[in-house]
């Protein structure tokens, strides 16, 4: 550089400088296009988004897949069951299995003891009687009944007849019973629990997703007893819609013929009946003995009192409390009860699906 600050001639060629500038700017402009051009040419991620539903969301999906997976073991199972012997081997996907012809606790105890270091899939051609305080970290299949002891932990269970989980047991992924499924006091059912017959949960059980023709909560739930008020008594549903801005209260024993949308809190008085569906954008409270022929939807929380009957889906975006003797759905028309958090009292019944996204809990009747 010269002392006067000017660039001396001959040091920088102006044509070269312009070319360099154009080159640098061009390179910087094209640089982000290089991966784009490569992807455009290679088409490495050009398939349509995979949205073909494999029904993975269907509650029995895992159980059905597992049953299909187990099908080729049927001859082995039959042989073991007939001879009362056991066999072991490796399934096509590399999973090690033990096929049992006897389902006694002693044998299962031995398998459970080695589970921590050498877990195996357990398949039984007979009833299985699992000992207490054991852990099975692979799937368990019984072509008969599965009777689990107390304080045991399971990854997944499939039984072709009934499943009975001892008190304080835990299922980590899924359990499906073709017959009735019973969880004794304090069980934790993470993931999916389903039955083709009925599910009964006792006090202090926690759950996420349940499905059965009938879900009974606690000993007190008596399937033959339906709430005194029944939505079936109401006249056929109408499409007429009542709309209310702000908090609203339906008076006790009042009958609403139509759908109701409340932009606020809603309280439905004892013995009231609605022939349509009900929505509130804030908390909803149903006092005892309310009958709803349609659905119940709350954008916040919902509290359903005793002896209520709801025909349609029950959905809350925050939490639902369902008191004893209340019935959601019926045997002919099962329904869905869903919320992030659900508390359900002993004595309540749900026909269909009971789905707590974050936590579901059986509470003692008050």
């Amino acid at each position, binding site marked *: 550089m010269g002392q006067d600050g000017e660039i001396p001639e001959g040091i920088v060629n102006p044509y070269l400088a312009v070319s360099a500038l154009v080159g640098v700017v061009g390179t910087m402009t094209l640089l*982000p*296009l290089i*991966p*784009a051009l*490569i*992807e*455009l040419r290679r*088409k*490495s*991620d*050009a*398939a*349509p*988004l995979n*949205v*073909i*539903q494999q*029904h993975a*969301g*269907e*509650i029995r999906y895992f159980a059905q897949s597992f049953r299909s997976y187990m099908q080729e073991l049927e001859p082995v199972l039959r042989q073991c069951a007939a001879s009362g012997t056991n066999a072991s081997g490796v399934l096509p996907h590399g999973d090690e299995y033990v096929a049992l012809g006897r389902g006694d606790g002693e044998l299962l105890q031995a398998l459970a003891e080695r589970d921590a270091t050498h877990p195996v899939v357990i398949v039984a051609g007979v009833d299985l009687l699992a000992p207490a305080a054991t852990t099975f970290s692979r799937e368990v299949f019984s072509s008969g009944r599965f009777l689990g002891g107390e304080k045991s932990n399971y990854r997944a269970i499939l039984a072709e007849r009934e499943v009975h989980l001892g008190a304080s047991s835990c299922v980590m992924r899924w359990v499906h019973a073709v017959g009735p499924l019973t969880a004794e006091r304090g069980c934790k059912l993470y993931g999916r629990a389903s039955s083709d017959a009925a599910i009964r949960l006792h006090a202090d059980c926690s759950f996420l997703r349940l*499905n059965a023709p009938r879900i009974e909560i606690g000993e007190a739930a008596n399937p033959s007893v339906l709430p005194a008020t029944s939505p079936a008594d109401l006249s056929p549903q109408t*499409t*007429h*819609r009542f*709309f209310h*801005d702000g908090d609203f209260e339906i008076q006790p024993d009042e009958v609403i013929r139509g*759908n*109701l*949308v409340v*932009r606020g809190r809603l309280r439905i008085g004892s013995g009231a009946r609605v022939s*349509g*569906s*009900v*929505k509130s*954008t804030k908390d909803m409270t149903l006092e005892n003995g309310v009958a709803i022929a*349609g*659905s119940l*939807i709350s*954008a916040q929380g919902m509290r359903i009192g005793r002896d209520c009957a709801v*025909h*349609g*889906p029950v*959905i809350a*975006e925050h939490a639902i409390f369902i008191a004893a003797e209340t019935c959601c*759905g019926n045997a002919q*028309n*099962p*329904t*869905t009860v*869903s919320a992030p958090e659900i508390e359900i009292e002993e004595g309540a019944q749900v026909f*269909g*699906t009971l*789905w707590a*996204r974050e936590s579901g809990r059986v509470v003692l009747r008050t």
Partner: protein
Amino acid sequence: MIYVLYFIVLLICVYTIRHYGFTLNRLFGFQRHPYIDIDTADWPAVTILVAAHNEEKVVANILSALMTVSYPEEKMLVVPVNDRSTDRTREIIDEFVERYPGRIRPFHRTQGKGGKAAALKDAMELVTTEVILIFDADYIPGAGIIKQLVAPFFDPEVGGVMGRVVPLNVGANLLTRLLDLERSGGYQVDQQARMNLRLVPQHGGTVAGVRLSALREIGGWNDNSLTEDTDLTYRLLLHGYKTAYQNRSECYEEVPETWTVRIKQIMRWAKGHNQAMVTYGLHLLAGKHRATLRERIDGTLLLGVYAMAPITLIGWILALLVFYEGIAPLHGVIAILSITAYAALGNLAAFFEIAAAVRLDGMRRRVCLLPFLVLGFGVSIFSVTRAAVTQIRDAITGAEFHWDKTERFRKAS
């Protein structure tokens, strides 16, 4: 001039913030899917309208798909709305009617006003169910989608429902790949964020549903509307009905494979949207109706989406004029900082949204195509501006709108 430019800059900033807000909500906010858990219910009877105008290449695919969905057969009626087709559409539909007796009731329309809304309006004579679903003929619904689209109607506040559209012919060429990215951003981020934030998810007129009593309450299909879906969204909103968006109710569609077809498509959308803006904009923002404050604001911004293209172009021209006129819009340092900040963040808003959508979809490598979106945006901005200009010209001259059917590219099955 300078104040007009200020106003345009303000508008662009509002839309930029909106893009960021939606994207951040999808990435970090609470996700609302209130009806997705309804898998067991006493399912209501449903009529499925399949809009078909010269759809011989695709109509068999959708009818086959609908015959295999997991919805009680006795509660589902498929009504192909054959709108004045001159190809084999009628013949193909009638073959399906014979093959599936009692499950398909065709509506063959041989005359009348053009356009999907007019055809749907006429087909309503066959509809008796409270829940109506609508598909365009080039869509391929999955097995579980009917239950998913019907489920929101258990909520009496819901008047309309919209599922997610997913391009099927993604790999055809650069255009289809760009449209795939745009659709991801539009549905996976925009629509779901509006659902999360209780704003105004838009009814798309296909992979969609409407409640019959709500439709009657708002006066039925508006066959004067160029985009019956946008029109429906706003009329439902003004009457206190929500449109529920079901992001997990995905359905394949065929996207345009040529720029000519794409330009025609986007011009029609722009004209329809602008028509709805003129019809409902002011009333939505300031009128007396049942929309909430946040719905009023978001609904107005949504109505203005297509108007932003010509506004942006005007902004660019004004900025050049301001520069050459020597007008200093702001103090130099502030101007430089503002331009730098906008260049760093503002321009990235739409790209950020699409990149986030692709990430949420779990498709990582297609995000490399993001820089090419500039091309798509360039074409859109000029097409939409052209649509606005011709719309104004037609309004002045009284010229009638010619409804262009989107060309299909699938080979007939």
